[in-house]
């Protein structure tokens, strides 16, 4: 993970594909020399002031052959993203130009950056904290606008800020208890235990909300895995394609991506959903019909939710449902009866009654019947009920943060218990400190000086 050398790294920082501009970023000790060698403009890059932009040309230093006209942005360490000397070359769009510029950088002393290496350097050099570094990684892999927004908020220090403010509230309680503990001879009266309890509850509620937001956050970040399973010929691929058609396809980075892949991301109410057509999974050897579900076994195991598909026109639909649900066991699924357009209304009502025990949702991949309802069901079944993603509330998307918060919450429960038992302040402080320490991973460490500073600013101490 950690770079043990002081080498200079470079990479094309804009996403692949055709765009208005492309940016090549260089970071490290040799950034200046590299820029000096390949840039021709009114100034020599290494002599430019930090955070300035210069117009000029990129040339091959060996042949002086022009590559492109560019804008060169210089940011000298430590006031750059990585805290190293950083140069960004904005060229005209197009992979070819950017690739050529990158090649020149590599030729003149840089090495190709590993994925996330700029961020890693930023983290190791202390310009961003761990939460921010993780957010950057999340942002790179964010697949929908919604998750991008969530990641962007975290990058802006949203999680750090929210938790830091909670941490600060706990520290205030701690300072209060410590003041009464450490300065028994001062004229301070008694601590307001009711206020303390109220404050504690406010903090606990907020942490609790954050912990619960994780499930939602996780979905936002990694998306839902949603395989479509069922007997052959029930219409798995038709449903797969219909859902894709009705929704914007997200993954388009790799040129040549076509529908013949077995999985695709779709966007349902801002949630990335990975739809998997298990019919598309080709297995070798003889596959008997009854084992249709076995093919998809692996997909089912990793699924967040399964779309179990049966055929509404199938006379033996009840048997099919039974064997399908039995095979799915405890897996979370939505039962769908496809081809609902192919039977008349009387028949449909009759089917509904006979299948009441299983209550499948009638859908049609052909006409789109029931798909709007299906999308609602998917969102509901995934546990995304609160939709706080739509508001500007902080969402936890990182399991490490969730664990830290849960741990902190556990200690705050102990404080509450201590308050009920009228425990002495130093015992309450013991668990408050533990709670603060649990959050340390997100908010940074709290020293006794931090607490003493609060005491001295709030209380007149002086015997």
């Amino acid at each position, binding site marked *: 993970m950690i770079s043990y050398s002081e080498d200079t790294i470079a990479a094309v920082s804009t996403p692949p594909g055709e765009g208005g501009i492309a940016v090549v970023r260089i970071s490290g000790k040799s950034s200046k020399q590299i820029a000096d060698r390949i840039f021709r403009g009114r100034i020599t890059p290494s002599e430019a002031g930090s955070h300035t932009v210069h117009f000029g040309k990129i040339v091959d230093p060996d042949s002086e052959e022009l590559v492109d006209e560019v804008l060169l942005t210089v940011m000298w360490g430590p006031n750059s993203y990585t805290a190293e000397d950083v140069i960004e070359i904005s060229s005209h769009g197009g992979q070819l130009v950017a690739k050529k510029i990158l090649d020149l950088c590599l030729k003149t002393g840089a090495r190709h950056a590993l994925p996330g290496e700029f961020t890693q350097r930023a983290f190791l050099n202390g310009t961003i904290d761990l939460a921010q570094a993780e957010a950057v990684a999340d942002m790179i892999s964010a697949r929908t606008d919604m998750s991008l927004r969530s990641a962007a908020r975290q990058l802006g220090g949203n999680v750090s800020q929210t938790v830091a403010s909670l941490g600060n509230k706990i520290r205030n309680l701690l300072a209060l208890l410590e003041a009464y503990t*450490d300065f028994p001879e001062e004229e301070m009266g008694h601590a307001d235990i009711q206020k303390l309890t109220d404050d504690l509850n406010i903090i606990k509620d907020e942490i609790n909300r954050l912990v619960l937001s994780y499930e939602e956050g996780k979905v936002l970040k990694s998306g839902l895995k949603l395989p479509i399973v069922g007997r052959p010929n029930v219409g798995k691929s038709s449903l797969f394609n219909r859902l894709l058609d009705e929704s914007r396809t997200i993954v388009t980075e790799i040129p040549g991506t076509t529908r013949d892949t077995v999985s695709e991301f779709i966007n349902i109410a801002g949630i990335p959903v990975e739809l998997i057509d298990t019919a598309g999974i080709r297995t070798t050897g003889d596959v008997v019909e009854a084992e249709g579900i076995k093919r998809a076994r692996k997909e089912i195991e990793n699924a967040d939710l399964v779309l179990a598909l049966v055929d509404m026109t199938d006379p033996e639909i009840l048997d099919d449902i039974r064997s399908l649900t039995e095979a799915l066991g405890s897996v979370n699924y939505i039962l769908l009866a496809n081809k609902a357009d192919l039977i008349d209304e009387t028949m449909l009502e009759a089917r509904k009654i006979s299948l009441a025990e299983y209550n499948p949702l009638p859908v049609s991949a052909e006409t789109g019947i029931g798909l709007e309802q299906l999308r609602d069901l998917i969102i509901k079944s995934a546990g995304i009920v609160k939709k706080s993603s739509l508001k500007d509330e902080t969402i936890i998307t990182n399991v490490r943060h969730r664990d830290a918060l849960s741990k902190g919450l556990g200690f705050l429960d102990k404080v509450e218990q201590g308050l009920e038992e009228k425990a002495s302040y130093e015992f309450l402080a013991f668990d408050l400190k533990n709670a603060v320490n649990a959050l340390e991973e997100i908010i940074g460490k709290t020293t006794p000086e931090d607490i*003493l500073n609060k005491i001295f600013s709030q209380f007149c101490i002086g015997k």
Partner: protein
Amino acid sequence: MTNLHYEIVVAGGGHAGAEAALAASRMGCSTLLVSLRKDTIGQMSCNPAIGGQAKGHLVKEIDALGGEMGLAIDRTGIQYRRLNLSRGPAVHSSRAQADRKLYREYITGAVLNQGNLDFLEDAVVDLEVNGSHVSAAITEGGRKINCRCLIITAGTFLNGLIHIGRKKIPAGRMGEKPSLGLSEKLIALGFKSGRLKTGTPPRLDGKTIDYSRTESQYGDPDFPPFSFRSNSINGNKAICHITFTNQDTHRIILDNLDSSAMYSGQIKGIGPRYCPSIEDKVVRFRDKDRHQIFLEPEGLDTDLIYPNGFPTSLDEEVQKKAIKTVIGLEEVEFTQPGYAIEYDFFFPYQIYTTTETKLIEGLYFSGQVNGTSGYEEAAAQGLMSGINAALKIKNEKPFSLLRSEAYIGVLMDDLTTKSTEEPYRMFTSRAEHRLYLREDNADERLFKYGYKFGLIAEEHYQKFLEESAEQKKHRQSLKRLFIEVKKLPADFLNNGRTKITFEKALKVPGVGIDLLKEYDDALAELSGRILKKIEIEVKYQGYLERQMREIEKFDKLEHERIPDNFDYAFCKGLKTEAAEKLNRLRPATVGQASRISGISPGDITVLTIYLKKFKEGLRVALKEKEH
């Protein structure tokens, strides 16, 4: 020039110096204590009291290691109190008013009567260094004292400067000349120094105080001695009084702020926030309509009163005018004005947790020269210096304490890892393992060391072992003894049982060991000290067990040692400033490194990765250096 030869020289006879000299000589080293005046050995420069919150803990620890402070205050106190008794046992602390003169005389006697220990009325003004090892102390009187260890305990004397209003008086203490020259010599040797400030209130003539309108504060009748080696205390023979400032006092102070040495900008040193001057309190907490003043008697055969809570560097006339507005002090006379004193200290990152300086082997710094304040903090360091200097003479392993075993461990660790922004004082909130670091178990925690060094006598140690065995035995017996529920407080929910074990009963709020011992003869025979220990162990079992588990986890990092020759510049992932800081402070363990201000958890992650690589054998860089 007269040449003298001692193994250990102690410069300074205050609380640090006295403990250092006593410990070193008791451990069998020929020791010389050099101080300006024989009649000020063990002098209390400021308030006539020992102990208090967190400081009482330090006194008990000093005692358990074989120091003198606990014994001294048990013999010379005139009022003894236990603070914070409404709280749990970890924050109970002992405090005593001392008879200033008796205390000083006790310490002077201990020093002058100690074998292996000589006293010289002089001042150390220079030192000789051979290679990187101290070799001699040079005195003002022109003596050269050859030595292998030199312990500097100069208090507030190094370039001491007293401020009273606009008046400046070079002095180490009121009426005593400062120590000039030594600071400069140490700076020339490469030590980094800074300037601190502290203050003291005026001294009052008790005959001119009207106590009738003040509150009285009495000592506690059942006060257990500070020292585990004392059987009794001197007793409660004096009363303190409490009075308050008022709006008139505050107006006079605010109107005359320009006469304060603090506010006129005349003082450059930084003062302690926990012991602010009265002008500071009035300015910073303007909405507070009164501040309390404790009128503390200075002794039994004197009328001197120490007005605790009123330190000031205001002009003497303003001090008088202001204090005369206080109830009971309308007619008061001063015997000495309050003053502020500025002095040199050496940033304590320059010492190890043993108090030995990193720069010069055999040179130790103790007390206020390390930027601390307080008699107890000074004495604790002095004891550490004395023990470690003696161990060095004997070629034995140095001694330091972990944060998880003593407040002294917290003190030394804080000094060596934190930046000093104000005089350092101990608080219980500094100790993350506070629930374990109690006054009542200081002997359990530290007697073994004091005994090992020969500072705790055999008889005391044997008694301690016997008590521990008794404690253990009877702690177990609580599981087998039963008490009828009806004998417990009525509001106790007994779940239909008629009898429960003593152990369960003791966990019931409001039930103490004193109640239980009525029902068991063997328990009743135990000493109060053992009973109290058993009670604490049972009553707080849950918290204490959790604390011990944390200590176990914590100590792992404390034992993760960083090799002396580890080069932080080698850790490319470290922030430059972090690497510089670590290279300068040279923490002994990863635990210590993690506590250095400005070192982030990320830095520690990077550091542990490199340490692992380093220890796994990637020592190429190092080997190249060696060759």
